[in-house]
C-alpha cells in the first residue's frame, strides 16, 4: 500500500479546522455529580418539580448502573466526578432577537460557517445553536409558528409546552436505558425540541449545531422531536469542538416519535474533535438515539456521517411499532489516526409488515478501528416483517481494523431478513487508474471513498451532502500510516 500511504500521508499536516476556542464568559457549575448539582441545573433552568424528580430518579438509577463493556472500543477510566455538568455562555437576560447574541458567540458561529443571521435571511434553514449544553439562538421561530411548528430549545419547551414534554420525554429512550442515557437524563441542560402538528409538512429543514467550548465540560444535550399524524420533518444536526488534549464526554439522547402516517428524516454530520495523531484528546461520544414509529404507516430515517470523536458509541435505532411502518439507517463512519467507532443500529419490528433498511459504510484509515454492530429484532407479532442489511467496510491502511457484528433475532416465521457484508482494501489499481488519468493521489482517494459512500450521501439533503463530502476528504488527510 505504499502508493496510498505516500499520497495520503502528504496531507497529514492539515489540522482540525474547528479546533479554536472562543473566549466567552461562561457560567459554570463546580465539577462533580451529586443531587445538589442536579438541583442546581434544574433551578438554573427554572424547571417544574416533576422534571426535577424525573432527573433525580434517573440519577439514582445511574448510581446503580455500570458502563457497558461489550463494545469494541478501548478507553481509560472516565472519572465522572471530574466533569463539569453545567456550563453556559453567560447572558444577562432572555434574548428577543439574534442581534442581542454575544458578539463573541456570533463570531464563533461565523467561524463555523453558520452565520445565524445569514442563515435566517438566506438559506431557509432554521437553526438552533447549542453551545456548552445551552441553546443560544433559534432562528426562524416566527415563520415556523405560522404553520404551527414548534422549534425551540429544550429548556424553552419545558416552560412553554410542558404538556408535550411531559407526555413524550423518556417514552422512546427510558431513563435507565443505559448508563449514558441515565446520566443524560439526570444532567441534560439543553437541546432542541420540535413538534410538527397534524398534517403539516415542515416548510424548511430544521437544524441544530452543537458546540462544546468550555474546558473540562461534558455536553449532555437532549433532543425530542414529535411528528404528529401525517406530518413530515427533516432535521439536521452538526457538531464541532475545540482541540484539547484531554478527553471530553458527550452523552446525548435523541428521541423521535412518529405518529400515524408521519415521517421524520434525521441527518447527522458528526465532527467532534477526534484527538491528535497519537490519540491524545478528542471527544468521547456516547450517544443514545432512537425513534419510535408509534403509528401505522409512519417512517423514521436516520442518516449519519460520523467523522469525528475519539470514540463513537452510537446506535440510532427505530422501534417499528405501527403496522407498515418503515425504519431506515444510512451510515458512513470514518475512523482515522487512533479513532475508534462502534456504531450501527437497532431495528425492532413489532407491527405487521414493518420494513427496515440498513446501509452501513465503514472506512478505516491509519490505526482507526471501525465496528459495525447492528440488531435486527423481529418479534412474534411482526408478521411479514422485512429487513435488508448491507455492511461494507473499506480499509485504507494495513494498521486499521474493520469489524462487523450483526445480531439477528427472529421470532416470526414470515419475516424476511437479509444481510450482505463486504470488506475491501482501497485498491492500488483504482488509485493508479485515477492518477494515470491526471487526478492527483489525494483527490483520487477522496473520490474513491466518496464513491464508496454514495448510497448514504444521496440520502442527505443536498447542502449537507456537499458538506459531508468535504468533511470526509479533510478527515482522510494524513490518515494512512
Amino acid at each position, binding site marked *: 500500500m505504499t502508493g496510498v500511504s505516500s499520497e495520503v500521508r502528504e496531507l497529514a499536516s492539515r489540522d482540525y479546522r474547528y479546533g479554536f476556542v472562543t473566549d466567552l464568559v461562561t457560567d459554570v457549575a463546580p465539577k462533580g455529580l451529586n443531587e445538589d448539582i442536579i438541583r442546581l441545573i434544574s433551578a438554573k433552568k427554572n424547571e417544574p418539580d416533576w422534571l426535577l424528580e424525573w432527573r433525580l430518579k434517573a440519577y439514582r438509577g445511574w448510581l446503580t448502573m455500570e458502563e457497558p463493556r461489550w463494545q469494541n472500543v478501548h478507553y481509560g477510566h472516565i472519572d465522572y466526578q471530574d466533569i463539569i455538568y453545567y456550563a453556559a455562555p453567560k447572558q444577562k437576560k432572555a434574548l428577543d432577537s439574534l442581534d442581542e447574541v454575544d458578539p463573541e458567540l456570533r463570531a464563533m458561529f461565523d467561524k463555523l460557517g453558520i452565520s445565524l443571521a445569514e442563515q435566517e435571511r438566506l438559506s431557509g434553514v432554521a437553526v438552533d445553536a447549542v453551545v456548552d449544553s445551552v441553546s443560544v439562538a433559534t432562528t426562524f421561530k416566527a415563520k415556523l409558528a405560522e404553520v404551527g411548528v414548534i422549534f425551540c430549545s429544550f429548556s424553552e419547551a419545558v416552560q412553554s409546552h410542558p404538556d408535550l414534554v411531559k407526555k413524550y420525554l423518556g417514552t422512546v429512550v427510558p431513563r435507565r436505558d443505559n448508563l449514558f442515557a441515565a446520566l443524560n437524563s439526570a444532567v441534560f441542560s439543553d437541546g432542541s425540541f420540535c413538534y410538527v402538528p397534524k398534517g403539516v409538512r415542515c416548510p424548511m429543514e430544521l437544524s441544530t449545531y452543537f458546540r462544546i467550548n468550555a474546558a473540562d465540560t461534558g455536553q449532555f444535550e437532549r433532543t425530542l422531536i414529535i411528528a404528529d399524524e401525517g406530518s413530515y420533518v427533516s432535521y439536521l444536526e452538526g457538531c464541532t469542538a475545540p482541540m484539547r488534549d484531554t478527553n471530553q464526554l458527550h452523552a446525548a439522547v435523541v428521541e423521535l416519535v412518529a405518529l400515524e402516517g408521519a415521517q421524520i428524516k434525521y441527518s447527522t454530520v458528526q465532527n467532534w474533535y477526534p484527538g491528535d495523531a497519537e490519540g491524545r484528546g478528542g471527544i468521547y461520544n456516547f450517544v443514545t438515539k432512537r425513534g419510535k414509529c408509534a403509528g401505522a404507516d409512519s417512517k423514521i430515517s436516520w442518516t449519519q456521517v460520523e467523522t469525528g470523536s475519539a470514540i463513537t458509541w452510537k446506535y440510532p435505532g427505530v422501534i417499528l411499532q405501527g403496522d407498515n411502518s418503515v425504519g431506515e439507517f444510512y451510515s458512513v463512519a470514518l475512523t482515522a489516526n487512533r479513532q475508534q467507532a462502534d456504531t450501527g443500529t437497532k431495528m425492532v419490528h413489532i407491527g405487521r409488515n414493518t420494513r427496515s433498511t440498513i446501509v452501513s459504510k465503514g472506512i478505516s484509515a491509519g490505526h482507526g478501528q471501525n465496528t459495525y454492530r447492528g440488531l435486527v429484532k423481529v418479534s412474534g407479532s411482526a408478521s411479514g416483517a422485512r429487513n435488508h442489511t448491507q455492511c461494507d467496510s473499506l480499509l485504507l491502511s494495513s494498521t486499521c481494523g474493520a469489524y462487523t457484528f450483526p445480531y439477528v433475532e427472529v421470532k416470526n416465521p414470515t419475516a424476511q431478513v437479509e444481510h450482505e457484508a463486504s470488506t475491501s482494501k482501497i485498491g492500488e489499481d483504482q488509485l493508479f487508474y*485515477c492518477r*494515470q*488519468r491526471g487526478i*492527483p493521489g489525494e483527490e483520487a482517494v477522496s473520490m474513491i471513498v*466518496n464513491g464508496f459512500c454514495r448510497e448514504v450521501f444521496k440520502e442527505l439533503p443536498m447542502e449537507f451532502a456537499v458538506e459531508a463530502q468535504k468533511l470526509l476528504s479533510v478527515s482522510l488527510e494524513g490518515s494512512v500510516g
Partner: protein
Amino acid sequence: MILRVENLHAKIGDNEILRGVNLEVSPGEVHAVMGPNGSGKSTLAQVLAGREDYDVTGRVLYEGQDLLAMSPEDRAVAGVFLAFQYPVEIPGVGNLYFLRTALNSVRRLRGLDELDAIDFLSLAKERMSLVEMDESIMSRSVNEGFSGGEKKRNEILQMAVLEPKLAILDETDSGLDIDALRVVARGVNALRSEGRAMLVITHYQRLLDYIVPDVVHVFADGRIVRSGDKDLALELEQRGYAGLAQRPALETSTPVGATP
C-alpha cells in the same frame, strides 16, 4: 522524437521482467509491440505510465524530459495516456463525473481554465459518438458492470477526451468480438494525428488489420528482438513468435525503431 527508451530494465523483487528495452517513437507514428504472453509487453506499458510497483533502471525521455522521475499524474498532464488492459472499476463514481474530473484536473495542472458542465457535456457527447458510446453508460459507475467491449470503448473515449500526445494501448483488442473491435479501431484511427504517437500493444495480428502501424516491434523475454514495418506482423502471423525470437536480438529490418 517524442519518446526515447534506453536500456530500460524493470523488476519486481528478483524477477526481472524488462531486460534492456530500447525504443524510439516520433510524433505521428503508430508503433505496434507484439509478443507472446508473459514477454513483458504490459509491464512496459505500466512502467511508462508510472506504476510504482517496479524497480526501474535505464532512461526514458519523453519530449526531452526524464519520464521516470515524474509521478503518474504528471505524466498524464504531460500527455501520456494508458488505455488499460483491464480497466478498473470504481463503484459509486459516475463515469461522466470521472471523465470530467480527469479532464479538468489535467486542464488545471496545465494552467488552463476548467470546462464548465455545459462545455464539457458537448465535448463528451461529440467524442462519445466516435466510439458509439451509449449515453446510459455515462451515468453508471466507472467500469462497474460494463461488458468487455464497453470497458474498452470507455478507455478510448477517455483517450479522445484527454487528447494525449502519447497513447499506449495495452491489449485493447483482448476480449472484443469482431464488431466491437471494429468500433474501437475506428475510434483509434480517428484519433491518429501528426502530433500524436501511439504504442499499440497486442498479442494478435488481427488488430493491426484495422490499426495499421508504421513500425512493428517483436517483444520477447523482456526486450525488443526485432523491428520492422507492418509486414513484420504478417510474417509473425505465419511463422509464430518462436521462429522470430530465435533470431539475434536487436536486428532491424528498417531504419526506424529499436536503437542499438
